[in-house]
């Protein structure tokens, strides 16, 4: 079935140029991935080193290597404890959260063909906030149980369940309308508002202590980070992102419209179900442990789109890395800018990120959306 083989001459002359263009583009995409990975690794080292107790980069590496039994640079006992017990879990949780929010944002934007979509705007965060508020204020959740012993886990589970529930409801709502993306987006937004009202109500009826805890949770942060948390979140994040990458081509084709995608052999409703399911899972898991962190999920994919275009094979991983870098940077700033007091990371992401994003939006002359 060599349809176009009959035509030679100019087409063949053109081939090297097309190949060159393709490898130039691919090279650029790979380069971005490598650069982001490098920045992330350096960021992890830097972020582990700075803080109330200053530790040199050498000590950080020493402490990490010592843990694996390699005593290349002898690090002090204190450095080891601070690095291993305090800083690294927090750094890793920030990295994982950035990855999951940005990856989920990139995929949700792609599958719903809407640049305004993110876990935050789709109401997932509001759902999670309601779940957490319920656990904090009422001291009881869907699972019930003794408040004091289970307090932390109750908040986490409740936030996870209600975050995911928002998307499930929006999805069910949309199935009535033939799974139209607009219905899904608007349904998610509407359900999000419903949960926000719930959060306001719970705030209003809560006592002083609960209110404070809730407000802090809502602003998002990585205070609660420990290895157990990291160990729980990491497999979910990497598993889901791997799963989402499997659908990268289908998402690319879906960008051309449902009809074209269907003709190219994509089972549109199946792709929607799986990609939305996985991105909901990964975003809910992250939000449950860290609280509400907006902006990262919306903006990281767009920054990457501006740099390398919309090929999801590269867009998803680079968005993940971009999200991780941005969130790690924000959290490091949040910890150190007015040390020893910490700022909630959500404030930093919005404060630093929004002007940067607006700058990019204006500077780029090309029309990227529409």
């Amino acid at each position, binding site marked *: *079935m*060599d*349809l*176009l083989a*009959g*035509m030679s001459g*100019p*087409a063949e002359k*053109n*081939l090297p*140029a*097309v*190949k060159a*263009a*393709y490898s130039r*583009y691919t090279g650029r995409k790979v380069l971005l991935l490598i650069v982001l990975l490098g920045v992330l690794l350096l960021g992890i080292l830097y972020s582990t080193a700075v803080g109330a107790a200053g530790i040199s980069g050498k000590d950080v590496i020493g402490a990490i290597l010592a843990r694996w039994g390699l005593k290349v640079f002898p690090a002090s006992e204190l450095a080891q404890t601070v690095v291993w017990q305090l800083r690294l879990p927090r750094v890793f949780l920030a990295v994982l959260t950035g990855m999951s929010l940005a990856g989920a944002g990139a995929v949700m*934007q*792609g599958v719903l*063909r*809407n*640049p305004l979509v993110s876990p935050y705007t789709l109401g997932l965060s509001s759902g999670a906030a309601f779940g957490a508020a319920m656990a904090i204020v009422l001291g009881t959740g869907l699972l019930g149980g003794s408040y004091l012993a289970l307090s932390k886990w109750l908040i986490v589970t409740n936030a996870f369940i209600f975050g995911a529930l928002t998307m499930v409801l929006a999805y069910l709502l949309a199935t009535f309308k033939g799974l139209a993306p607009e219905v899904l987006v608007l349904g998610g937004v509407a359900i999000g508002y419903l949960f926000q009202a719930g959060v306001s109500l719970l705030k209003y009826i809560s006592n002083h202590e609960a209110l404070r805890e809730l407000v802090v949770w809502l602003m998002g942060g990585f205070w609660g980070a420990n290895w157990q948390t990291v160990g729980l979140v990491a497999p979910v994040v990497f598993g889901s992102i791997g799963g989402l990458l499997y659908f*990268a*081509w289908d998402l*690319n*084709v879906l*960008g*051309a*419209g*449902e*009809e*074209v995608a*269907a*003709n*190219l*052999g*994509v*089972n549109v409703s199946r792709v929607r179900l799986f990609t939305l399911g996985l991105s909901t899972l990964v975003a809910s898991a992250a939000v449950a442990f860290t609280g509400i962190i907006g902006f990262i999920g919306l903006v990281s994919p767009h920054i990457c*789109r501006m740099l390398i*275009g*919309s*090929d999801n*094979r590269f867009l998803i991983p680079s968005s993940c890395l971009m999200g991780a870098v941005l969130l790690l940077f924000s959290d490091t700033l949040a910890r150190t800018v007015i040390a020893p007091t910490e700022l909630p990371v959500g404030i930093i992401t919005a404060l630093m990120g929004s002007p940067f994003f607006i700058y990019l939006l204006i500077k780029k002359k*090309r*029309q*990227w*959306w*529409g």
Partner: protein
Amino acid sequence: MLFQIKGVCFSYGSVPVLENVTFNVQSGEMLGIVGPNGSGKSTLLRCLARVLKPRVGTIFLDRKNLADLRGREVGRCLGYVPPPGTGQAFPCTVLETILQGRRPHLTWGVGERDLVVASRALDYLGLTDLGDRQLGELSSGQRQKVFIARALAQEPVVFLLDEPTATLDVRYQLEVLALMQELARSHQRLVVVVLHDLNLAARYSDHLILLHEGRIFAAGAPEAVLSPENIRTVYGVEAVVAKNRWGLQITPVAPLNGPANGDILEGKEMAGKTLAVQA
């Protein structure tokens, strides 16, 4: 290669759009589908592209039921070009768009063969210099050509085009339809094209199907299908049909029972007749 459409019915909700549509097309043929707005042309084409599934009836491609084709086989057999106005949701270069058409052939990486096909498709439609432009920066006509090139990159047996010429200027219209004709004749493809322009439809199609309220009103050679009587019944328009060296020349004169205007008096005398004009 034989495309058999047998008793296809389709409805959106309770509104029937297609009723008992039956016809055959063979490779090497270019079939035009014409009919007024809402007569079911695009729906029929979408059923053929397996974008929609007929409620009743079966479509066979070489005796193989279209409904049984698995995922990517659809894209390898049928190349669908959507009507103008459906673009990309996110920024995308021309080359990336055309490579989307390789989806049915590849799993993850884009290989040598994919790039060869893409470069030929680019060249075939005269888009060579536009390869790394953003799709959003092109004119609507150029974009339409990119979408045709994407279908070409699928290397399908059957091409299905919905209003491919609607946004094109006169030159591009002729170019694109001549390309489709060449695909059918020289490359033994099967081309089904939905057209609003009756002159172009008559000139480039080997056979025409005239749809009226979801049914085939007439089918066959363009001269037989586009008679003044048929045009009057289906479109509600008085028309003069003249035959010349380049096919039929259909001049719609006035809508039936519509408001009159200056030229009509003269036109009415000739309306309803097929004229043979020596060219």
